[in-house]
């Protein structure tokens, strides 16, 4: 199965692949942002592979890491082939503090909520998304909590020396 996917990717999207990664049997491809929809569509609709099930979309923030040089944010598409019982990952690296990426809503309806979650918690904008609004955080919360530069605490902890002061809110 690994070989089959590798061959498929090399034949159809040789320009789009940045590199292939293999971690303990988990096959993943880093691809260029522009090729994302073509790759997803190809994997979904290929007769042999049939990655029809989008399990999850998640994201990473490499802020402050040496990896940040390749782009601060990373979006990971977790695909599953029901026919082959095989799982693979498509990863995209994004530059800048306010990154944008194309939506996968037209391919999978489930991408709608998954992308809203990524937008809400990590602040990655999905262009073309029909309803890109908050999904989990409170409506009055400003910012994207899973970003590494988001404040870790809400109130300054109270010790013996500041117990009489009102709690200072950080956000």
């Amino acid at each position: 199965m690994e070989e089959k996917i590798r061959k498929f990717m090399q034949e159809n999207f040789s320009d789009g692949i940045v590199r292939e990664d293999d971690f303990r049997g988990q096959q993943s491809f880093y691809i260029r942002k522009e090729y994302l929809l073509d790759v997803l569509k190809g994997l979904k609709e290929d007769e042999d592979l049939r990655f029809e099930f989008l399990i999850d979309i998640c994201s990473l923030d490499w802020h402050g890491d040496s990896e940040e040089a390749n782009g601060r944010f990373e979006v990971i598409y977790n695909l599953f082939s029901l026919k082959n019982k095989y799982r693979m990952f498509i990863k995209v690296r994004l530059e800048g503090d306010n990154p944008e990426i194309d939506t996968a809503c037209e391919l999978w309806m489930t991408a709608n909520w998954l992308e809203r979650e990524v937008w809400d918690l990590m602040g990655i904008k999905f262009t073309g998304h029909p309803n890109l609004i908050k999904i989990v955080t409170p409506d009055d919360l400003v910012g994207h909590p899973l970003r590494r530069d988001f404040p870790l605490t809400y109130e300054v902890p109270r010790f013996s020396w500041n117990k009489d002061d009102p709690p200072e809110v950080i956000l």
Partner: protein
Amino acid sequence: MGLEEKIPDGIMLTTLDKMVNWARKRSMWPLGMGLACCAIEMISTFASHYDLSRFGMEILRPSPRQADLMIVSGRVSRKMAPVLKRLYDQMPDPKWVISMGACASCGGVFNNYAIVQGVDTILPVDIYVPGCPPRPEQLIEGILKLFKKVEQESLKDKKEKQVKRLG
């Protein structure tokens, strides 16, 4: 006692406060509401092993209209806070609140954007039960402490507080 000797058998003299408080204390119905892991300990408290029916409060009311004790069992997220406030407002007076566990009392380890830092910022709490989560014995101790508090209440004060709260 002077007066009781002169009235017929089977009649007992007491104050209204004492009698009403006794009734309230002995039929306190908690709201069946679990928020987090503390709820598991709360459920265990109500189940047969710890058997809270010994204290006349084994019935968990699924409707706030029939409940008079709210046990805030666990962390309250910022999105849950309005719901909690609404449930509390729907409970008829007199009503009491137990804040169970570290998270409900002060936010616990969740000092972050998602969790209310202490349920006392939105509800008037009567008893705080510490622990993470508190054992059923601790919750029972808290409930007994609440009973002590109820015994000492006066109807007038309670009413005045209620009027003040409702504005």
